């Protein structure tokens, strides 16, 4: 019985690095787009699933790796790409919210230190209902595709066509 428990515990511990849960809220595939070392503003993306019976409202995010964090949505307005600050995001019961390139993103302002692909960034998500959720986001190189099929196709294409240079290869998990 004990080995089984150890295996389960290990599985739980390792799985929390990509899927954390609080009061039925689960975070999937959190990642931060690697940016030039000089970049002052970065973006984090993830999916939030609400498995519970009550709406959860994301109101803020904090991280020891950044001085300031805001929630934003990229939009097309008057023929221009613009960013609208969002103060709360409702995740309905049994619903899902996706933060993805070109849309909702967690805006990470003023990194304390430059971040490189492979680094982990801890983010704490605060909900209006009083709960919080700690997630560990991986820093990755990434383009506009996020995790949709379009992106997968590109990724596979790059893999196929790349000639030893993995510089622009997007990591998918």
């Amino acid at each position, binding site marked *: 019985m004990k080995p089984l428990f150890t295996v389960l515990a290990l599985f739980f511990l390792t799985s929390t690095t990509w899927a954390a849960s609080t009061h039925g809220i689960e975070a999937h595939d959190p990642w931060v*787009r690697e*940016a*030039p*070392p*000089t*970049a*002052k*503003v*970065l*973006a984090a993306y993830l999916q939030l699933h609400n498995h519970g019976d009550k709406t959860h409202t994301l109101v803020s995010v904090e991280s020891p790796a950044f001085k*300031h964090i805001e929630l*934003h949505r*990229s939009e*097309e*307005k*008057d*023929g*221009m*790409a*613009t*960013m*609208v*600050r969002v103060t709360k995001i409702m995740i309905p019961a049994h619903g899902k919210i996706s933060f993805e*390139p*070109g849309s909702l*993103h967690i*805006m*990470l*302002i003023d990194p304390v230190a430059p971040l490189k692909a492979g680094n982990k960034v801890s983010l704490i998500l605060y909900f209006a209902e009083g709960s919080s959720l700690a997630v560990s986001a991986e820093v990755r*190189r*990434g*383009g*506009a*595709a996020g995790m949709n099929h*379009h992106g997968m*196709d*590109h990724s596979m*294409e*790059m893999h196929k*066509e*790349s000639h030893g*240079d993995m*510089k*622009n290869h997007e990591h998918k998990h």
Partner: protein
Amino acid sequence: MPDTHTSKPWMKRIAVALLLLVLGIVAGALISRNSPPPADSGTAAQLLEPRALQPFRLSYDGVPLLDNDDLRGKWSLLFFGYTHCPDVCPATLAELARAYELLAQEPGVLEDTQFIFISVDPARDTPETLAAYTGYFNPAFIDATGDHAQLTALARQLDIRFRRGTGSDEAYNVDHTSAILLIDPQVRYHARIKAPHHAQDIRRQYLEIRRQYQTPPS
């Protein structure tokens, strides 16, 4: 005559079925005509009547960075943005960098192709900042910026708009048109690739436009 009694509703049913079929075809044709185009064409390049660029000059603190002559004899893919942009700009530049890698597979293409990132935020983006920023995506990428009047003069010719958006003095956003612009070797505004951008689409559309340019239909 029981036969006629049974055949009448039978014929009626066929008539109704035929009518429904015809209505279905008409409705289908109408719907397909009015339905939005398939998702892929959202990123289709928009070909323009090539328009010669009027003389422009971008400079920073008196140092010339870009003018018409820099575009002559090469295809240029232009993208306007700013380095404090966390989402759209790095995503687009990453896709452009991947498009560059894909185009490297096409013999001779990169020899007369240049990628240019133009910052519409000269207050925060110095040439040094820009060089580090674009160099991260691809060291071959060219960058430029200019004062507001210079940027406006160029942007206006390319139907690019930009304006300071919301946010504090240190962390303000800049709204900007996110299309990629294709300038042909005769320094003419040739095509426009609208967002969202994906490397494969950029590659395919650029190569198609290039092919048509080199062998114009007789």
